[in-house]
């Protein structure tokens, strides 16, 4: 499969469906990087494989998902406009115990506020959209409520992540609801990283390998957040960790672990 020989169509077909072992897949990726013939055949087979998906029964997207998506891109567009202004903001106050609660609530409210601002501007052009805007607001409130639910739930696991014995400066807090796979993470006083590096958050499940839970880079004052990364539902965690990885992230945590924290039983248990 390697060297000057071309890869068999069988192996390329399997690779197009990610049905090879990681070792075989890595060898094929290396070969594809240098062989235009195999690359062309692989693209053909990938196109064939894509067509398989076209044969599945078609379903309507769930109710409200269109609104949720459009809200998300609207908020993203608004944040993109807002971000240059944040560069000039004043010095951030030192992080205090429990200061994360108002911060997180403010973040949730900010999501709503940004979306409301967008809507205010659009009212002049969209008088006929009043009815849908009510539904829109309901979704946004639900989103904020979901964040607050994670923050206030008795069953949420609150974990304080600290640095190794020689330093207590960087800290992180993870709030995790295993049932819904919801995670909110906030870190402070992190060191800035070179451009080719990133921080990566890990959920360490009770059973199985660490699950990547998002890449992040701190801002100018060392603060960073990860809010609701895509995670599988129903995976109990025994710990959380943060590592430094190459910019594109890693499949497995790379030592040393910068921040780590084990879970404790949820209050009330």
């Amino acid at each position: 499969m390697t060297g000057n020989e071309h890869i068999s169509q069988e192996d390329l077909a399997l690779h197009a469906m990610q049905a090879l072992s990681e070792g075989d897949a890595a060898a094929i990726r290396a070969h594809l990087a240098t062989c235009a013939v195999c690359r062309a055949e692989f693209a053909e087979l990938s196109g064939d494989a894509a067509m398989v998906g076209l044969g599945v029964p078609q379903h309507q997207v769930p109710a409200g998902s269109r609104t949720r998506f459009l809200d998300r891109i609207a908020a993203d567009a608004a944040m993109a406009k807002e971000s240059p202004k944040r560069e000039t903001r004043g010095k951030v106050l030192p992080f205090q115990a429990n200061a994360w609660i108002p911060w997180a609530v403010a973040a949730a409210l900010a999501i709503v506020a940004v979306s409301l601002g967008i809507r205010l501007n659009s009212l002049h052009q969209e008088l006929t959209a009043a009815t849908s805007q009510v539904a829109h607001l309901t979704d946004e409130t639900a989103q904020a409520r979901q964040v607050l639910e994670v923050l206030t739930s008795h069953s949420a696991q609150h974990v304080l992540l600290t640095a190794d014995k020689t330093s207590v400066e960087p800290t992180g807090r993870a709030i995790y609801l295993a049932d819904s796979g919801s995670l909110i993470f906030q870190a402070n006083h992190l060191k800035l990283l070179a451009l080719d590096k990133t921080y990566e958050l890990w959920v360490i499940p009770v059973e199985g390998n660490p699950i990547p839970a998002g890449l992040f880079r701190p801002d100018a004052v060392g603060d960073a957040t990860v809010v609701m990364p895509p995670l599988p539902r129903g995976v109990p965690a025994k710990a959380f960790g943060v590592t430094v990885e190459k910019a594109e992230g890693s499949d497995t945590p790379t030592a040393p672990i910068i921040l780590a924290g084990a879970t404790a039983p949820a209050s009330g248990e």
Partner: protein
Amino acid sequence: MAFERTNHNEQDPGDDLLLERVRGKDQQAMAVVFDRYGGMVYSVALRVLKDPEQAEDVMQEILFQLWKKPDAFVQGRGSLGGWLMVLARNRAIDLIRRRKPTDSPDDVVLVSKTNLASETERNVLMEKVRDVVKNLPVEQQRSLELAYFEGLSHSEIAEKTGDALGTVKTRIRLALIGLRKALAA
């Protein structure tokens, strides 16, 4: 901000034009992409995950990736709809196998001569694909199903079916090539 739901007809802009507008952060254009491909992407994810909430999460993530990084899709090397379906299928498989995403959108390159932007052509193709797959030999159907929708590796399929590794490989290749020929006919 409310956007009118789009009706698919011959007046709809093509994918190239839509992507150009998405690059300019045109939310209305992204709404059209959602209306055009959201259901297809959701359906593939649902077929793999069998969980509407998780399938919606995948659909939202895939389409949001396109919004954030439209240049990941390079025009001229496949259809946008096919590309989104591959990303959704791969992400769904990653989820059921509880693994980190195995490829980035930039790595997904496919050749497709189909025009999925047209609802009419899309519906015709869907019927044709279902028909072709239904008429594949049962063993080929089974291998394709296990690999594509359940995310099993060829060795896991061989173990599950009791077939030789080489047999599994050949069946999957024949199934894909059979599909290619039938669609080209």
